[in-house]
């Protein structure tokens, strides 16, 4: 299978997945969306009539008046196409088309910090913050993890190896958000070192905003790194243990090449393909996993937006955010696949 064909097939699968995700999301929230939209119309019509008492006065009987209101409501439902059920092909197709061209419509309740209720604006405001926190954390985690893992893997059975492995196993069974609660309890309320809420108290337009943001970011960042690097180190260690047993490493050892050079230049390079794959995956995985962590630390990013949207059933935001999360996830899977193919020549010729 040639590389081009490989990429083409992967991309097609990814696009298929994206469509399926969208369809599933619409199917799951569609019926609720209808109810909410129809209620919105009824409310709107009533509000218009109460604002304009002349309409009510022009009717002699209550029945006629009620009929008029009902007609108004039906008319609007028809113009918006809501008379057809949400699962009718036209409506699903239309919704999907609009989402594909990144037109997510307007949010029902939530707004961005600047006051816009356009879902696109809200998402654009939140994504950079999530990327800032979680990408920074993932990069720090992977750097610590790779070096610690390489060190542990080259000295199997040593103290460093044992401590790293033990830490990895133990830290992986703690939920990050619970450690987050403990960290807030300890460092924000018992010792007043860091702020408890990660949302900076000053407006983004003020000059000290970046510094305030970084200061507020410290506690979540430390927590995520603390819980994350152990698993990384353990993975890298296991790859290294495998690689260090390979013949070419043993040959290099017996040739008297410096051990550090062997570890960091030859062994680590050989373990690179799986490590890079995991790096790409955990970068995107962190974005999805951010929902609970952001809720705990009150970090104003995608995760908290998603959580807030769920709690008030703000459907346009739910659909938009799911779409963006899926796209990011799929892109990183694709990149991971391609990198793997690039670093491991066996994939190309398979």
């Amino acid at each position, binding site marked *: 299978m040639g590389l081009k064909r490989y990429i083409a097939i992967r991309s097609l*699968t*990814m696009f*298929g*997945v994206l469509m*399926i*995700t969208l369809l*599933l*999301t619409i199917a*799951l*929230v569609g019926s*609720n969306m209808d109810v909410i939209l129809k209620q919105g119309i009824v409310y709107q019509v009533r509000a218009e009539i109460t604002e304009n008492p002349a309409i009510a006065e022009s009717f002699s009987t209550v029945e006629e008046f009620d009929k008029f209101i009902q007609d108004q409501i039906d008319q609007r439902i028809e113009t918006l196409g809501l008379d057809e059920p949400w699962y009718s092909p036209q409506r699903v197709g239309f919704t999907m088309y609009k989402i594909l061209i990144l037109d997510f419509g307007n949010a029902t309740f939530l707004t961005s910090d600047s006051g816009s209720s356009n879902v696109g604006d809200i998402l654009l405001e939140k994504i950079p913050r999530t990327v800032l926190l979680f990408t920074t954390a993932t990069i720090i985690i992977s750097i610590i993890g790779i070096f610690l893992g390489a060190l542990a893997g080259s000295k*199997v059975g040593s103290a460093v190896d044992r401590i790293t492995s033990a830490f990895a*196993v*133990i830290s*992986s*069974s*703690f*939920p990050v*958000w*619970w*450690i987050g*609660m*403990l960290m*807030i*309890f300890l460092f*924000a*309320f*018992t010792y007043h070192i860091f702020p*408890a809420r990660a949302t900076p108290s000053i407006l983004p337009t003020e000059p000290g905003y970046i510094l305030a943001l970084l200061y507020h970011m410290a506690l979540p960042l430390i927590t995520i790194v603390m819980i994350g690097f152990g698993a990384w180190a353990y993975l890298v260690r*296991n790859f290294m*243990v*495998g690689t260090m*047993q390979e013949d070419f490493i043993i040959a290099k050892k017996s040739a008297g090449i410096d051990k550090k050079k062997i570890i960091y230049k030859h062994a680590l390079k050989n373990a690179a393909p799986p490590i890079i794959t995991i790096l790409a995956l955990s970068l995107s995985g962190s974005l*999805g*996993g951010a*929902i*609970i962590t952001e*809720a*705990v630390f009150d970090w104003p990013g995608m995760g908290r937006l*998603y*959580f807030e949207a*769920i*709690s008030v*059933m703000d459907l346009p935001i*739910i659909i938009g*955010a*799911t779409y963006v*999360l*899926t796209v990011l*996830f*799929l892109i990183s*899977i694709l990149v991971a696949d391609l990198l793997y193919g690039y670093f491991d020549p066996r994939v190309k010729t398979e």
Partner: protein
Amino acid sequence: MSSVSPTEIKREFMKSKIGLIGVIILLSLVILSVVAITTIPIDTFKQWNNPGNWISYPKTSAPAWVNYFVMEKIPEHLILDNPTVVTKDDIISLTSHQFDVQYHYDDFPSDFIYEINVEYSGSQLLQISLIRPDNSQILLVSKSLPQSDSKITHHERIFSTDGNIKKNIQIHFSEMGFYNQNTTSENMIFANNNGDVLKGNYLFLVNIYGINENVNVIDSKLILGGKAYGMMGTDELRRDLAVGLLWGTPLALFIGIAVAVGSVIVGLIYGVYAGFKGKKTDEAMMRFNDVIYALPALPFLIILAVTISNSIFLLVGFLMIFSWVGIAKVSRSMALQIKTRQYVEASQMMGQKNSKIVFKHIIPQLLPYAFASIAISVPAAITTEAGLSFLGLGDPTFPTWGQILHDANTYGAAARGIWWWIVPPGMMIAITGLAFVFIGNALDAIVNPKLKK
């Protein structure tokens, strides 16, 4: 891939210290679940979210054992429902309930409540008095129960804030010369002349006098409000956290094991079948696998919980949807290797049915790997469920650890320093996860000889 025999696995496992620790933790958790199911009546946890059930418990009280570590003893919340009963039948009958309280704490109780459920006829007089450690006797309440000619059941709660109690205390202490009207009743009666806590033996006497002896006390309870209670303390809604934590154990084990077993079985059969069939079937099945793999799990779980149902049993199903994928991939590649072995090819040539080959020849080879994956996938299921519950999407009929943490977060436990509301549930989640991680790692090391060194 070399196959490992069950006896060999057992022998190797007994050698692994971590694996044994895991088994010990798991066994203790199972014992804890059995204790929870047998000792705590099932309606207690059904009543978890019913505030009426917890009314006689204290609000946000620390665990009682905290008193062993602090200098100032925190008053313990006492629920006394086992009084000494004395009855006298004379012209005037007397039923006396005596509550003995050893009070040796360094702070006053927050309040006291006397609760009585009594069946009687005629007119009865209820008197509550208190004998203090200095042998002085104070009359707290003296009131007649509603008159009735026929037999009735009367339920009454007398609070320490009751006006009669305040008046009686004023009379008593004014005579002694140190009445302070800004002090509450409980602070008055538990104080010595200097206004400090008077430690020692208090005796609450509840006497019911009547002309005819038709008195039957069904329930009589004295609650002395404190700031420490039970093994695990209580939360803002007065719930005994020990009940929630205990009941969380069987629930977490159920969720974790059900999801892990279910998804491993599905993944194993799916993967092996795809690998064994090969060609177009394999291709199609693996593409479907890719689709599920690429779905963002947590957002979808949240949408499913919100739109379909947050029932714990459905949640187990939802979690399975997202967790069989990885296992299917690995089983497929293992099946691809086993398929080429001679005995499989031989049985194929002999015309054995495909299903028989898959279940008799290939899957048994993968069982050690399957057990390791079951153990390894349990913690993820438990933490994911806890996470969903933490977001408030859990099943409200079952108190899980995640829900306890959700409530803790809602009521700002971290900000208020209520550590006993945050630390134990998380510790339980971590310990349970750890037990399975230990067992899984030990098994993995045996099944995957590459990791051995």
